[in-house]
């Protein structure tokens, strides 16, 4: 229950398994690279160099990891409640587009210091609303959340395109007549400070880390989190204990969506300062993967997001220097996901043995001995 981060052999296995898996995936990916006539060793060399090779590289990795971390932390909440939230993608878009309208709309009127935080809040609330819809449909009409969130993603995409090519389009684009689907740039007051220019890494990184800790505390240290996890683990027993299952299913999706929306706002205020067509595409799905890599634990999401950020950055670098098609990278990511998730079985076996040996052992950290909630992928 208490998740002290004590490092036992169990945690070592937990830490090692995915790394070994990644190595195996890279070996498999090596075949692809040979197919392309590229030297795998050199390719992976550039990949690692691109992700960790220099300070600049590390900062890039952090930049890319930031939104993924925030999304993943949200995903943890949903999955802990036994809700499969495929809808992060759409929730990110809605969060970003709302943040943009808010910042553009009230940028002039609001005091500068308040603008950035309130814009973030707007993004959070919008994402929460977008999550609340499938949440309500599930709680009230028992509509399967995979179905509703998949559909909500497509709806969000069209909504985004509609707003960007119409109501929210950058006046400059209209003036120029080029009518490119992008919003105007948000006022500087709502930007998130860069930490180490020229690198793009920004305050959002700390927001992400803070969220991870907050959500960890929420899930394992508060009554709300206790109920969310109880509902996720056993709906019947929760009902019998007087916990309102629908309410907490809903709450989980709201918070989950909220964090995705926040991620959208953070990416907007930290990097782009405007929403453009193709903004944050694919972040939602990456976020799910990051969350599951992190064993659905908010703190686990931190290294997991860093790893995935590194993967993205390193892979781009590889694409550039080796001039291999970007598709190689996508395939490689797929392989890594598959291999890592497959490696879970060894972790589970180890934990099973350990919980059985708990007689002598100290209380095992929650993050490793809590199995995926019922119905969770």
């Amino acid at each position: 229950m208490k998740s002290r981060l004590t490092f036992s052999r169990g945690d070592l296995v937990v830490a090692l398994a995915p790394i070994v898996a990644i190595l195996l995936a890279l070996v498999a990916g090596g075949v692809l690279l040979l197919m392309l006539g590229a030297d795998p060793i050199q390719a992976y060399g550039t990949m690692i160099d691109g992700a960790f090779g220099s300070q600049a590289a590390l900062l890039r990795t952090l930049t890319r990891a930031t939104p993924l971390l925030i999304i993943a932390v949200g995903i943890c909440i949903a999955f802990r409640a036994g809700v499969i939230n495929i809808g992060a993608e759409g929730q990110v878009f809605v969060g970003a587009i709302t943040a943009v309208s808010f910042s553009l709309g009230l940028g002039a009127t609001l005091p500068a210091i308040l603008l950035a935080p309130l814009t973030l809040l707007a993004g959070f609330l919008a994402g929460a609303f977008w999550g609340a819809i499938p949440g309500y449909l599930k709680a009230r009409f028992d509509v399967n959340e995979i179905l509703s969130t998949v559909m909500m993603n497509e709806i969000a995409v069209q909504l985004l395109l509609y707003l960007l090519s119409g109501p929210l389009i950058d006046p400059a684009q209209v003036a120029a007549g080029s009518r490119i689907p992008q919003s105007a740039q948000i006022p500087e007051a709502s930007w998130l400070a860069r930490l180490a220019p020229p690198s793009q890494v920004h305050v959002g990184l700390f927001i992400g880390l803070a969220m991870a800790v907050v959500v960890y505390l929420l899930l394992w240290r508060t009554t709300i989190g206790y109920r969310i996890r109880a509902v996720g683990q056993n709906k019947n027993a929760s009902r019998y204990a007087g916990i309102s299952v629908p309410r907490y299913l809903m709450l989980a999706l709201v918070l989950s969506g909220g964090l995705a929306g926040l991620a959208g706002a953070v990416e907007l205020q930290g990097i782009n300062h405007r929403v453009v067509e193709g903004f944050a595409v694919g972040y939602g799905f990456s976020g799910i993967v990051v969350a599951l890599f992190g064993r659905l634990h908010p703190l686990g999401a931190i290294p997991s997001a860093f790893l995935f950020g590194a993967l993205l950055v390193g892979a781009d670098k590889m694409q550039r220097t080796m001039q291999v098609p970007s598709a190689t990278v996508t395939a490689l990511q797929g392989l890594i996901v598959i291999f890592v998730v497959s490696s879970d079985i060894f972790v589970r076996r180890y934990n099973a043995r350990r919980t059985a040996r708990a007689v002598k052992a100290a209380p095992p950290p929650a993050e490793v001995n809590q199995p995926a909630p019922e119905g969770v992928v």
Partner: protein
Amino acid sequence: MNFGDVLAQALPLTILFATPYLFAALGEVFVQRSGVLNLGVEGMMLMGAFTAIYAVSSKGMGADPVVGLLIAAGVGGLMGLAMAFVSVTLQAEQGISGIGFTLFGLGLSSLLFKLLAGGVITAQGFQPIHIPFLSDIPVIGKILFQQNILVYLAFALVPILMWVLNRTKWGLQIRAVGQNPAAADSMGVNVALVRYATVIFGGIMAGIAGASLSIAATPIFQENMTEGRGFIAVALVYFGGWSPFRVMLGALLFSIANNLQIWAQILNVEIAGSTIPPNLLIMVPYILTIAVLVFTRQRKQNEPAALTKPFQRGEN
């Protein structure tokens, strides 16, 4: 044009473009009925789509469309096999491994596209077959009996698969394994084998679904041409309450809604004197699918109780 004419024009395309969803979703019904969730459909469709057209295209092997179909099915089946190994034998979390296969399929299909085709690739795919006499029936004939062979195959599969599911030993074992694997196991049913079979079948169907896009509906391939259809297919399985018949209804509903919104665009349909922005019209099928679920009583009696739960003998 009055609505009747529009409908008469819309229905043939509705049926044509429902087939990719139908193939993929029918396969997923079997996968889920046996207690496995396969979110890799998208990737398997893409691999099927590319290999099929590459086999058929003159740029590629220039083979007969049937060969292309078989190759697509084979490739889908192979990916299904891999998925089965990961989710059944290694008991990996199914959603995430599925997403892994989606990424892998997207990447590999695009890669092969670049390596082998080099650029946009087209082919002489399956042509519409006019069924004698029937195809001459006014309206109906054009809607139902002037389609390509894959369309006929997809819809023929619905009753067949219903029959397999509800009337055969395999169907019985699939339903049992999905509901209560421990019970099935205690009756000597090989749970792993059944799940391998369904997941491979699901892969084959996804591969065919891809082929039905790339060498039937529109004989061409572009990177990521499925554009999320695999996920829609999975959603349709829930829409159809794990019943082949209802999944078909779902695919048709989704498809006709989409075609009608295209009509609404080209006819400049106006509401309150102003035309509706295209992007809003394009949302309609997605909204409709959810709405229908909300307003119709959902059937859960086929819901596989063991969905996404790996089976380990003795752990229950």
